[in-house]
């Protein structure tokens, strides 16, 4: 029998409930207030009192309101039909909600279990299967959506029956499995899974070894992110965090994109809703929206559900990963999630850590990032979740708890610099502060050298060296004056400017420049390094900027042209002529 309880205390959305039976930590309950049922999660238990955080406004709640416990943790429903959906942090289907304003206590089904899908069985009666094995598949848009053995089943199971190919409803039984102890389980296309528990029904999680192309040059070339890797983008407001994340979501070569808009502006989400259904996915020729799921808990939606939203996104990502797909998960912004944790810790009167964040914040963050990764499935296939989160550091100061905790967990660090944003050098990723740990992985460097070109990683390191030397040269020039330094300093500075303008800066709003395939990045890197290697002769430092500005201008025009088009080639000849005129003979 389900546990029941009565409300005995209320402070904002923290409610104490006196219970009449067993309750579990993180168990979900519903509190009845008039005709509304408010969803809540148990976050602390003291004897017969459960402390629950309510996912909605608690206005009007009184002592004595009845609560009913569900016996399970916060779960999501997984099955075909999730792609292109817009969910809130608790996986309610926002499209299905009535009215312009969200109504308290209104919960909508994440999936249509009455929908019919063309099911093709992948197993036959008598086969031995285990958790997450593929029983069959349906076409969810262009994705071969696998119907899997529920993730929580243990050991080997025998297929007792499986339906034949044809149209079946999502909620109907498609197979019956028998466990070693003789118990039978009916399997439909839909299963449930608790969001705070990682889906681990894969064979092994391996070290990432190849890169995930994003089309953003300052990521792919300078600090590549691995498929199955993690990265984060901290930056003060107005530095282009969201624009950068949107660019990645539009261009990355992933099968599934899951965007968690966590505590951010509603109009930004509206922009995705408006744009994505219009944008073409270059890889499938379909609309971008068809491979996208949006979890949207904007800043004004209830705070507790904001915390749940990142887990909801991660769990859906894990589900698709088990189908052998490449998933890209983006969360904007993880700071808002951390703030949600802080508000609750505060109400629970926990002893605070730095900046009043809970003491276990670093553990929570690293635990979350660790759920990403590249996995090998039992059937030999592989799948991955690449996770990129943004961080909104208070006052733009990177020495704050969320940034610091994330730095320990994420492997790529894309620092957005206010100074770059101020001088309109977008994307404002600071080339010197940012890093990718994957460039230290022998697997990844081996992959890059084998797949882009031999010696590629060495070239990337040279780019970084030139950028650093250019920065040092500029500092010296600023201190000593234009004519107080050797001419070589000016050349060094302008070499770094060529890299900055041509490789780093990228126009996210230009059709061609917005996304650069890796082959084109390779070509331009070689061109730019070629220029840096040229021995050029100058009379006086004034000639240095004149030439380099001319070169930069031509190279920029090249970036705006279709790769290898006639204009591209003619600009390139112009470039060669300009260089030849200054070359030391």
């Amino acid at each position, binding site marked *: 029998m389900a546990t029941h309880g009565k409300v005995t205390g209320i402070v904002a959305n923290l409610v104490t409930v006196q219970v009449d039976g067993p309750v579990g930590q993180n168990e979900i309950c519903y509190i009845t207030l008039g005709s509304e049922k408010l969803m809540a999660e148990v976050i602390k238990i003291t004897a017969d009192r459960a402390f629950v955080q309510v996912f909605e406004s608690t206005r009007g709640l009184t002592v004595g309101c009845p609560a009913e416990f569900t016996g399970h943790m916060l779960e999501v429903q997984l099955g075909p039909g999730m792609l292109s959906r817009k969910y809130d942090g608790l996986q309610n289907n926002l499209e299905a909600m009535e009215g312009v304003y969200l109504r308290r206590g209104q919960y909508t089904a994440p999936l249509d279990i009455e929908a019919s899908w063309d099911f093709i069985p992948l197993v036959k009666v008598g086969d031995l299967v285990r958790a997450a094995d593929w029983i069959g598949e349906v076409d969810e848009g262009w994705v071969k959506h696998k119907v899997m053995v529920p993730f929580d089943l243990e050991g080997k199971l025998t297929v007792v029956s499986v339906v034949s190919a044809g149209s079946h409803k999502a909620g109907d039984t498609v197979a019956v499995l028998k466990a070693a102890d003789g118990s039978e389980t009916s399997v439909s296309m839909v299963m449930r899974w608790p969001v705070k528990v990682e889906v681990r029904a894969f064979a092994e999680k391996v070290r990432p070894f190849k890169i995930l192309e994003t089309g953003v040059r300052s990521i792919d070339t300078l600090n590549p992110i691995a498929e199955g890797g993690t990265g984060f983008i901290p930056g003060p*407001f107005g530095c282009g965090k969201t624009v950068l994340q949107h660019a990645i979501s539009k261009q990355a070569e992933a099968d599934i994109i899951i965007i968690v808009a966590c505590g951010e502006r509603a109009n930004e*989400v509206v922009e995705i809703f408006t744009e994505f259904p219009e944008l073409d996915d270059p890889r499938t020729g379909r609309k971008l929206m068809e491979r996208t799921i949006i979890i949207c808990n904007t*800043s*004004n939606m209830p705070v507790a559900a904001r915390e749940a939203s990142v887990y909801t996104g991660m769990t859906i990502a894990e589900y698709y990963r088990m189908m052998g797909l490449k998933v890209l998960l983006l969360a904007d912004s993880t700071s808002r999630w951390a703030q949600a944790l802080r508000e609750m810790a505060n109400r629970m009167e926990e002893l605070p850590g730095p900046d009043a964040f809970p003491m276990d914040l670093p553990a929570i963050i690293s635990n979350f990032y660790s759920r990403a990764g590249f996995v090998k499935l039992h059937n030999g296939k592989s799948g991955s979740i690449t996770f990129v989160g943004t961080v909104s550091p208070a*006052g*733009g100061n990177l020495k704050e708890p969320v940034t610091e905790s994330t730095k320990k967990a994420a492997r790529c660090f894309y620092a957005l610099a206010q100074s770059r944003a101020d001088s309109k050098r977008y994307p404002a990723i600071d080339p010197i502060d940012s890093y990718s740990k994957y460039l230290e992985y022998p697997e990844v460097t081996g992959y890059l050298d084998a797949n882009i070109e031999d010696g590629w990683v060495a070239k990337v390191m040279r780019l970084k060296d030139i950028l650093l030397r250019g920065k040092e040269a500029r500092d010296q020039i600023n201190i000593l004056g234009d004519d107080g330094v050797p001419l070589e300093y000016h050349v060094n500075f302008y070499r770094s400017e060529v890299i900055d303008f041509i490789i780093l800066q990228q126009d996210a709003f230009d059709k061609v420049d917005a996304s650069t395939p890796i082959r084109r990045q390779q070509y331009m890197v070689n061109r730019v390094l070629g220029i840096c290697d040229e021995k050029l002769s100058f009379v006086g430092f004034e000639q240095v900027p004149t030439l380099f500005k001319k070169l930069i201008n031509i190279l920029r025009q090249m970036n705006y042209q279709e790769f290898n088009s006639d204009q591209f080639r003619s600009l390139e000849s112009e470039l060669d002529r300009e260089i030849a005129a200054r070359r030391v003979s």
Partner: protein
Amino acid sequence: MSGQGFKPKAFQKVYTRIDNITKATCTITAQGISNEEMAYVDGRPAQVVKINGEKVTLQVFPGTQGIATNAEVVFTGKPPSVKVSEEMRGRFFDAYGLPIDGGPAVEGEEREIGGPSANPVRRKQPSELIATGIAGIDLNNTLVTGQKIPFFADPDQPFNQVMADVALRAKADVIILGGMGMSNDDYLYFKTVFENAGALNRIISFMNTTENPPVERLLVPDMCLTTAEYFAVDKNAKVLVLLTDMTLFADALAIVSNRMDQIPSKDSMPGSLYSDLAKIYEKAVQLPSGGSITIVAVTTLSGGDITHAIPDNTGYITEGQLYLRRDTDISKVIIDPFRSLSRLKMLVIGKKTRKDHPQVMNACIRLYADAANARTKLDNGFDLTDYDRRCLDFAREYSRSLLAIDVNIEIEKMLDTAWSLFGAHFTKEEVAIKQEFVDKHWPKIAEKA
């Protein structure tokens, strides 16, 4: 305004024994009380903030000075609410929605304040501009319906004057002014300006002045926005909400959280500051039915420091920010073209305004930046080129005829003014605008060789 003359009605719960009294709260033993319900303690408005069994803690808005343990506590059974109707136009109210202009009480539908959020999938992308006549806004940082944007201003800057100008000129159907911690002088200024302009029928004001208890301010934004939702949702009106000063609102949040024994985070602000501010600003919305709520707020800075928790959190929530700056060259206050930003302007400029708008805007700012470099050269004792001098001349006139906050012209006129400045000071190459626009708009008479 404390609810003096408040008479308990028959069905309301009345108690006369207070267990605990602190500076801001009273705790009594009561049953069947609901969370966030309004009550009156000795006639003073109060709200339920905590319930623990039969112990109910009330936050008394005007403070608890002089309240005795046997004071009368009356529960209303309702959360804070406002009566909304067309009758509100032209009226001035306090933080509880009661008239302070000597007029009669407003009759209308009673609505809970601080209602739910708009479903993001039901929002429309903002696409309609709101003209203010101020070129520093319309030309460089165009406002769009459904946007939320603050002025970041130092306390010595004339932000309330700018807000009054915006209120009078903005092409909006209803304008709602929320004053928080406003000096009585400023309140009277707004009142006089609105009355003299004969614009009262478009304007509704909720005022918390420095003479009122600070905690009352917390109700003002929700009062304004619930009223705004009535006009935007029910009447499909284009509503502009002006909130000044949000820094004082945040200060009141800090006072309350301190009295509730919450652990402060950055700059002594409550940990929930971001969510508290977002709940207000995110009420800005473009509705599918055509109605909209646009919010222009003031956030005062201390010494221009935008890394303080209040402007910092605000910056992450709002869609851009506007800065005021005193231009010593023309001795007027201008809207700083460098640091100000309207994130949504790209949705309307060149689309809802003349096609040359984006290019003219960028050219002006670029030339203005060249002028700033020329000024640095001048300050460092370097020689100026002819171009530098022309930039400086341009900057002065640009500042006077377009950036100054006392400019009040149509957007077409702003663009024409910019073109005549280009023609007077620069060659076509120096301005570097797309040829088709130059052909169409370059001034015929003033042409330079």
